[in-house]
């Protein structure tokens, strides 16, 4: 794998360089193409995306304020929630209406905002669970250990490699429940890799992780791209996004409002508006903040005198 160290990052940036930074911009080699996906809960429209594409081999960030519909959009694409309407294709194959486990089998594997490491299984069992096409998972073949044991051993070796890389090898036989928050996120990511995905969809991988671990997580995300996988991850912390993502898609109120490389997105007025709310004024300097505080206290005192 590491012999020909093709610089995947450079390759991705080169491919995306020519892409205009506006919503729905077509990509040279899209792995995922989405057309007007809509999802409504009662009267509220949670997601309404006309068109968006994800470049193969890139690390694309899907950002937006809380409640922008990022996770709901994620759930639509991965079959965990049924969209009201809309079509999307993965590697050209139509995926709308496909059940969650079929989506994963096609190579679109996701993780969850609240990590779903299976605490009552050991770390190794969690990893083995991720492997695909296990002969031992058929009820009748399961009865004869010799039918699936060789494949199980291969899976175990692959799992150990990944655990080594994710520095979880020591915890191999412990219950996943005994891992820390960060370690669980690592386990969930490692387990997703066991599936052998083409597109890894991480739902807020950095949420609730202590800063020391964030760097190693970012390193692992980069490793994914090194191994030829495409990464689409949801994040609402802009600084985190800046240094690892090749492309950024911004969502607000359920729609894609901007797309482009991280730097252009950071400067884009619409994105800042979306994040800080439309009617904001420039960020408060400390002096202004104190002045507002005094004013509020004065008002309060007046009110109390009135009442008394």
């Amino acid at each position: 794998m590491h012999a020909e160290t093709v610089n995947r990052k450079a390759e991705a940036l080169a491919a995306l360089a020519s892409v205009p930074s506006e919503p729905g911009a077509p990509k040279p080699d899209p792995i995922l193409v989405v057309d007007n996906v809509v999802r409504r809960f009662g009267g509220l429209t949670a997601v309404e995306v006309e068109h968006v594409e994800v470049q193969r081999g890139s690390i694309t960030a899907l950002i937006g304020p809380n409640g922008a519909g990022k996770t709901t959009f994620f759930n639509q694409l991965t079959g965990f929630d049924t969209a009201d309407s809309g079509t999307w294709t993965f590697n050209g194959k139509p995926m709308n209406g496909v059940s969650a486990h079929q989506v994963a089998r096609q190579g679109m594997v996701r993780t969850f905002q609240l990590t779903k490491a299976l605490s009552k299984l050991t770390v190794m069992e969690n990893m083995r669970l991720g492997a695909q096409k296990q002969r031992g998972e058929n009820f009748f073949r399961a009865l004869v250990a010799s039918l699936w044991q060789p494949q199980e051993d291969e899976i175990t070796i692959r799992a150990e490699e990944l655990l080594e890389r994710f520095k979880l090898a020591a915890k191999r036989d412990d219950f996943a429940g005994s891992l820390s928050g960060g370690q669980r996120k690592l386990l969930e990511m490692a387990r997703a890799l066991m599936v052998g995905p083409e597109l890894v969809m991480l739902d807020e991988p950095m949420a609730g992780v202590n800063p020391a671990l964030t760097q190693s997580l970012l390193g692992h995300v980069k490793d994914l791209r090194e191994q030829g996988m495409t990464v689409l991850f949801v994040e609402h912390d802009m600084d985190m996004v800046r240094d690892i993502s090749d492309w950024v898609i911004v969502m607000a109120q359920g729609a894609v409002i901007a797309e482009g490389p991280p730097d252009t997105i950071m400067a884009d007025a619409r994105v800042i508006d979306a994040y800080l709310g439309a009617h904001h004024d420039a960020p408060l300097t400390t002096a202004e903040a104190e002045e507002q505080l005094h004013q509020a206290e004065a008002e309060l005192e007046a009110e109390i005198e009135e009442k008394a």
Partner: protein
Amino acid sequence: MDWTLIFIRAVEAGIGTEAVIYGLAAIGLNIHFGYTGLLNFGQAGFLAVGAYGVATTVATFGLPFWLGIAVGLAAAVLFALLLGIPTLRLRADYLAIVTIAAAEIVRLVVRSVALQDTFGGTDGLEAFSDDFYGMNIYAPGSYDIGPIGFDHRTMWVLTVGWVLVAIACTVVYLVMKSPWGRVLKAIREDEDAVRSLGKNVFSYKMQALVFGGVIGALAGFLFALSRAATQPDLFSTELTFFAYTVLILGGAARVLGPVLGAVVFWCLLILVKTGMEEAVNHQVITFITVNQVGSINYMLVGLGLILLLIYRPQGILGDKREIALDAR
């Protein structure tokens, strides 16, 4: 107070037909509830389907015994499929309500007047166990190990029963050790996680329901054959909840949990029952009549179920950490 009679009766119950039948029913339930977290309150339905499968085939239609067994098993698989399709996507409490309703439907249909020619109505069916007892390897007479003894017919039922229990335990052990078992345990904890790894959760839950249901049907066969008669009201909800008490007492999600649970449960239950009956007959306890002993027994089972779940949900063999009785 004849204490030896009490202990003999308790030991006989511990290894007797009741223990075997409830052991098998609990093993089936262990697959559903213990390993996959399916809150199946309709295990009595699987026993009824098995028992009536063999009884109707042999007694009403006069077909051979082994065909009856095949029909019983096929009926259990069909019942699992019919039960699974509407329910396996639902939350635990909906699943509980629907499975208890399904088992009641089976009971009400087989006891119905309209179908009494096929199912025998409230009296149930008789005269279907001759072939079974024809294969009895024991010559007539009673077989004793010390004071504990069974007649040849019961010996035959027990031998067949305990062999079935051993086979069921072996199959469960092998299958739960395999990747198939691993997926089941994962489903018990979080279905979405398993779905995100490309496993068809619905099909695994259905397989578990069928596998547990077939073992339940085996228990149903023994239930009917040991009595040489089937009665619809034996397959009431009490049967399912006795099986739950047995399973949780022994230890859910453990291969031998249900077996040990059945033995200890019936040993204790009959110990208390015979003890009270002896005490009442010998005027040691005077404030209750012998008929009320039965109701006290049921009360103790209810109380036992409550205390087990509060203070020792993992039962005898279980491991506290592994038991998450909060299947989704």
